[in-house]
């Protein structure tokens, strides 16, 4: 008998390993989660759910008379001197249960334990000796009586949420491992009715109908253009960087403000914490630096003006020619404004415990360049050109870890501001020129 191989080896760009051990490890992990879910679920059901359900369904009603009352002192186990002591109001009630008279202590649910003894006493005073209150007793143990019924929904939610999540995640994982065990790679990957159910979190990108491996382009055709058919969505890496700087500045300075308030209160109270003040100085420098970097990025992003791109048809096809309208806002002199058509490959891979993504532009075609544009405030530059695709280019491709992306890229160089790059992704379908594309020759128009 040949045991599965523990260790993998590098073969070209691919790392091979033992599928059997991987499946076993994955199955074991999910089985542990499933087991934890069963144990937690059982404990919570027997400790919370079942007793509460019995009180509401099995306990017969009775009338209780309050004969004594007191505060129960609850001290944490093992805390002789320290630890918070809580106080629980308790009532001793007399009631009829199954034809016999019973008397026992009970804790009203509405009187929760509190560390405030005065508040517990006030709550206890709301019951008077000799007062009659409704109660429900346990038919299996008549000495157990409750004065209130109902469900603690928070407890139920917690009782169901954690074990439910463990049971669902672990159960789905175990079912997937059992389903995959002993099956070939192709059989596992073959589509089946259970695929969607057992892989609810599969990371495959949305695909175009009837075109496997081609990304969907719904997001590219839901915004009509002013002159051409569609306005393309912008993908600006600078915007995400700016958002990151903004979030950092907000979070860092929120913490800084809390520390400053704490130090200020100490100073007002006559105490000086030099260590805290010493730490505040570099913290404040970083906080101010974060705000400056964010504001600088914001000014740069907004001062240049917005860039819009409209296209006459979408999706694109190899061999097709498409009218494109570039609209650039802003004011002042633009040294250059270039439009290029680019094909980029993107690969995501694991390196140790990290997940890395590498991008590489493998094809670039200049479409149009404008030089020395003088933009007036309140007006925008509009330039029309034609984007042509060669007949034998790769279509857009998207799988879980690999992408081939097409995009129209606008690069601008304003005289007073740093250069900028704005990317407008497009989707190229395979096959010949589709309907709706203009059979136009190359032409260029520009207006400001």
């Amino acid at each position, binding site marked *: 008998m040949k045991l599965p191989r523990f260790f993998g080896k590098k073969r070209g760009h691919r790392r091979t390993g033992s599928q059997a051990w991987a499946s076993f490890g994955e199955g074991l992990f999910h089985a542990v989660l499933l087991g934890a879910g069963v144990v937690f679920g059982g404990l919570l059901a027997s400790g919370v759910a079942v007793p509460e359900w019995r009180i509401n369904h099995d306990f017969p009603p009775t009338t209780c008379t309050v004969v004594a009352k007191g505060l129960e002192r609850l001290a944490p186990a093992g805390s002789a001197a320290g630890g918070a002591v809580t106080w629980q109001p308790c009532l001793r009630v007399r009631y009829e249960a199954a034809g016999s008279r019973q008397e026992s202590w009970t804790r009203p649910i509405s009187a929760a334990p509190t560390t405030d003894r005065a508040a517990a006493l006030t709550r206890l005073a709301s019951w008077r000796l000799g007062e009659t209150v409704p109660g429900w007793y346990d038919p299996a143990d008549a000495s157990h009586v409750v004065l209130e019924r109902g469900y603690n929904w928070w407890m139920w939610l917690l009782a169901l949420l954690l074990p439910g999540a463990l049971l669902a995640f672990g159960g789905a994982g175990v079912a997937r491992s059992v389903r995959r065990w002993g099956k070939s790679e192709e059989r596992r*990957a073959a589509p089946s009715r259970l695929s969607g159910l057992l892989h609810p979190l599969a990371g495959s990108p949305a695909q175009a109908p009837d075109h496997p491996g081609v990304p969907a382009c719904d997001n590219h055709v839901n915004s009509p253009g002013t002159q051409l058919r569609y306005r393309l969505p912008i993908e600006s890496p600078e915007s995400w960087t700016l958002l990151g700087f903004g979030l950092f500045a907000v979070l860092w300075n929120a913490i800084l403000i809390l520390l400053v308030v704490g130090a200020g209160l100490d100073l007002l109270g006559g105490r000086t914490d030099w260590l805290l003040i010493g730490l505040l100085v570099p913290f404040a420098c970083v906080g101010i630096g974060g705000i400056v970097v964010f504001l600088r990025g914001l000014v740069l992003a907004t001062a240049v003006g917005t860039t819009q791109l409209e296209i006459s048809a979408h999706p694109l096809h190899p061999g097709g020619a498409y009218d494109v309208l570039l609209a650039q806002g802003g004011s002042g002199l633009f040294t250059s404004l270039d439009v290029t058509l680019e094909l980029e490959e993107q690969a995501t891979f694991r390196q140790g415990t990290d997940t890395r993504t590498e991008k590489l532009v493998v094809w670039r075609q200049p479409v149009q360049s404008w030089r020395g544009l003088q933009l007036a405030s309140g007006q925008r530059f509009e330039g029309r050109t034609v984007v042509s695709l060669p007949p034998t280019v790769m279509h857009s491709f998207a799988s879980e*870890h690999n992408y081939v992306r097409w995009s129209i890229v606008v690069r601008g160089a304003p005289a007073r501001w740093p250069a900028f790059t704005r990317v407008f992704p497009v989707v190229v379908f395979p096959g010949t020129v589709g309907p709706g594309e203009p059979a136009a020759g190359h032409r260029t128009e520009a207006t400001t």
Partner: protein
Amino acid sequence: MSQAGDNAGKGLRVLVQFCRADRRYEPLSALRVRYAIEGFADDHPRAVEHSVLWYTEGKGEEDLVVHFFERVTERSALPPAAASGTFATLLPPSPLSYEGVIVKVRWCVRVRVFFTGGRDFVSEYVFDVGRIPPARLPRGDDP
């Protein structure tokens, strides 16, 4: 018919014939494959899986999608009772075969033989869908 063979096992050989000599197919065209398994001794096949699939190769993690899959377990359709097997499928419109720089898309036929002793043997034969030329880096972008 284009013929290819794989004898990576101990004397075991899988011979595959494609319906096109150049193994180059257009999208939506029919792919017909005949295969024969030879060279097995005492350990007889108990099942054969044949599939048409594409996978990615290159820098990223491998993605694999099966377009056509069939598992044959009837003794009458397996060697030694049947000398060869055939299958046919209509290829989808995409993805096309692509030889990129860090992303490659490859189409292939796989024949996997499961033996009564528990081991299995797989043979893979790459073919092309579409006619996309290999990608080349733009000048000045060499990594």
